[in-house]
């Protein structure tokens, strides 16, 4: 469903992506791994049209992705950005409703709301608190839930486990499995390589703006040299 073809991107003079190609198939979970500053976040930004690539193209269902991010959302690409980016002056509830912005079916929205509240009961407790006053981990839960409220066809997750307690990290990955069962494809960027590969079908390994390696999760997990070289184990 998603084809990234030979994409180059840069911040001013600094090249962050160099000839990156990648694909995600319908119903797949794909992990992108790599060290700090490898360009993972930049890749997700390009896919969700937050950033314009210098060259190359991104196809979604064989159509060029739109040039502005709000239209990508309409097509079903939802990006849970790095650093949470929740709306500090909106309450938890309102943050979630913004996530459901394009969903006109009020009943469905309500159901979704109930669903994320059961996933993260903590959010229900904090329903009327301003997003900016949540703890770091609570904000992360909110960011993920807000993404889920948009009913993605393709969910882009940028380090979803960042700042979460181990027990919640496990929970998150369980939830991802569940979402995937519902038919959502997922592209996940993670520092926690094992966890990510444990739920992913395939993985890509990036370093300094280039895809160094790709393969099924099994292949990658069994290649010890690779893991040492790029993921530090």
């Amino acid at each position, binding site marked *: 469903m998603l084809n990234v073809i030979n994409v180059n991107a840069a911040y001013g003079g600094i090249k962050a992506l160099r000839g990156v190609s990648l694909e995600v198939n319908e119903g797949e979970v794909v992990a992108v791994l790599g060290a700090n500053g490898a360009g993972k976040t930049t890749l997700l930004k390009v896919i*969700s049209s*937050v950033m314009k690539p210098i060259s190359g193209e991104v196809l979604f269902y064989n159509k060029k992705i739109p040039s*502005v*991010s*709000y*239209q990508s*959302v*309409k097509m079903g690409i*939802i*990006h849970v*950005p790095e650093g949470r*980016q*929740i*709306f*500090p*002056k*909106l309450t938890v509830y*309102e*943050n979630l*409703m*913004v*996530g459901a*912005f*394009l969903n006109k079916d009020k009943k469905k929205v309500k159901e979704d709301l109930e669903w994320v509240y059961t996933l993260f009961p903590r959010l229900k407790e904090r329903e009327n608190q*301003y997003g*900016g*006053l949540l703890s770091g981990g609570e904000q992360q839960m909110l960011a993920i839930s*807000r993404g889920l409220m*948009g009913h993605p066809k393709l969910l882009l997750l940028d380090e979803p486990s960042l700042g979460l307690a181990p027990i919640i990290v496990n929970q998150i990955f369980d939830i991802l499995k569940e979402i995937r069962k519902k038919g959502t494809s997922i592209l996940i960027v993670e520092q926690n390589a094992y966890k990510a590969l444990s739920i992913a079908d395939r993985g890509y390994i990036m370093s300094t703006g280039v895809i160094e390696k790709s393969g099924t999760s099994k292949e990658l997990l069994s290649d010890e040299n690779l893991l040492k070289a790029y993921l530090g184990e």
Partner: protein
Amino acid sequence: MFLQQLVNGISIGGIYALMATGYALIYSLLGFSNWAHGDVAMLGAYIGFLCVASAKLPFYLSCIAAILGAGLISIMNERLAYRQIRKNKAPTMFLMIAAMGLSVTFQNMVIVFIGPKFRTFPPVIPVKAIAIGNIKLGVLDLISLCIVLIAVILLEFLINKTKFGLAVRAASTNLNTASLMGINIDYYIALVFFLAGSLAGAAGVLLGLKYTVYPQMGNVSLKAFIASVFGGLGSVRGAIIGALIIGIMEVFISGFVISGLRDLFTFGLLIAILLFKPTGLFGIEVQDKA
């Protein structure tokens, strides 16, 4: 006399309020005080005036023209200047400076192309005051208070109860992320500018009817700006209550204390109140959480 002064204060405050709503609206979205707001009102007044006086259109049509025209000018400001600055990712202060530049530009554009003269609307609606006992109440004041009332109810509903409002409030803190949620921010921003601009247009016509039309007439919006800050930045309700308080305060100080020091006392009081309520009457503050 007390009652008469109270009525005077409310009616002056009403004019400030009409302008202040627009300030609050734009502040609530983009986080800056749009100093060109008063000049949009001025341009609205000129559109209305030219329609009535030169094109000889009926008054109600001229009003509609003024309101739509000011709305469009407001959108144009956004398109030509503010949007570019947003895209540059410049600090919000730049928006305010650009607005000041626009304000100078508009005033002088009118001076150059229409002339510096003061213009009066032909007597289209009764400018008379109605007397209730000893108290004189201007008809225009009544109209402007009604508009304020409608505006505040409408805007409060719009901002707090509708999806439109949710989008605007989300966009106000983080435009990029709002866009990631599927909100077409450029569209909503344009809409808000149109709303603010039309309100300014209505205010402009009222001001023009009341106080004549001239290039610097938009400068009253300084008071509206003060009112919107005092009421709490970004809060429409706050802006209106702030405006009424300032209006009444000014009148009472002029009327009962000392007219020459009116602004001194008004500002003194405002500062004193801000010291107790640092984010104005209705401003929400989300603490900086480490």
